């Protein structure tokens, strides 16, 4: 699970949960994979990202310093775009859990795949 995906996930579907966002990442294995840098894609994604959730996710997996504190004002700065690309596309949570910030319900991440399925008690 890349951090760009984490940015989209919430536990709001659980009964009684108000925000369910951002989910806490409890990682037991994190890898970095090479992904082709596509500046135009990163530029397009930046406005869609919840920056504070991204900062939080990066912190959970120990990549906080790689990320600027604010979304970049200058979208043409390749250096900054590359750093963002690295954090959102290349950092990969392979194993661990996502945890609902309100109920502490855990969603397993296995083999890089978060399992967001709810059971009967959740709905």
């Amino acid at each position, binding site marked *: *699970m*890349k951090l*760009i*995906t984490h*940015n*989209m*996930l*919430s536990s*709001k*579907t659980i009964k009684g949960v108000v925000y369910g*966002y951002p989910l806490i990442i409890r990682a037991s294995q994190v890898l970095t*994979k*090479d*992904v*082709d840098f*596509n500046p*135009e*894609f990163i530029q397009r994604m930046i406005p*869609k990202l*919840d920056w504070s959730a991204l900062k939080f996710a990066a912190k959970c997996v120990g990549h906080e310093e790689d990320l600027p504190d604010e979304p970049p004002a200058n979208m043409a700065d390749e250096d900054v775009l590359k750093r963002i690309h690295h954090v959102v*596309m290349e950092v990969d949570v392979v194993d661990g859990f996502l945890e609902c910030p309100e109920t502490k319900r855990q969603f397993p991440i*296995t*083999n*890089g*795949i*978060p*399992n*967001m*399925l*709810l059971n009967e008690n959740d709905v």
Partner: protein
Amino acid sequence: MKLRQLEAHLQEVQGFQEPKVALEQYVTPAHIAAHLLHAAHVQYGDVERKTVADLGCGCGVLALGAAMLGAAAVTGFDIDGAALAVCQENLSEFELPCIELVQTDVLQLLTDAGTRWRNHFDTVILNPPFGTKNNQGTDLKFLEVAGALTQGAVYSLHKSSTRKHVIRKASTLGLAGEVVAELRYDLPKTYAFHKKTSVDVQVDFIRFTHKNS
């Protein structure tokens, strides 16, 4: 990438190990998948450099094909962990790291009104479960989710015999459907409720766009 080349690659994709009938798990045949994706790419420019969702991605034929045609990022959603495990193997085999997988009930994506996936994607592709005798219209529920996840185009497969109904229902969802191709689909007999070992089903490959755009 040439159509023939794409089809050849997709033929190498590993399929379901123990397909679950209730989830309508069968792989979109490589020639159909390739044709569908190639049309979306060449005729409409909806794949290259786009963000793409694959709803009910199964072993990932459509997601992989989209990535091969240059999609910037692809997210595959499926309810079944076993299918996703095969899909994950396929991703590593083809070395396509821009594909992400999420295990979830696609229909659940819609219940959360605040879902951040809403309008997230440029393009959504799907070969939805058609729905069986007891739960008809699953494909239309999937279509509704697809329409919510993008302001762009949705590519989907539906039984030709239900075309009128599909187009009408899509229209009430704000989607205009255009049949891009009619295909013959060799459905395993388990899914066709038929005595022969397999049976040809006529399938429409439909491109939907939002009427307001």
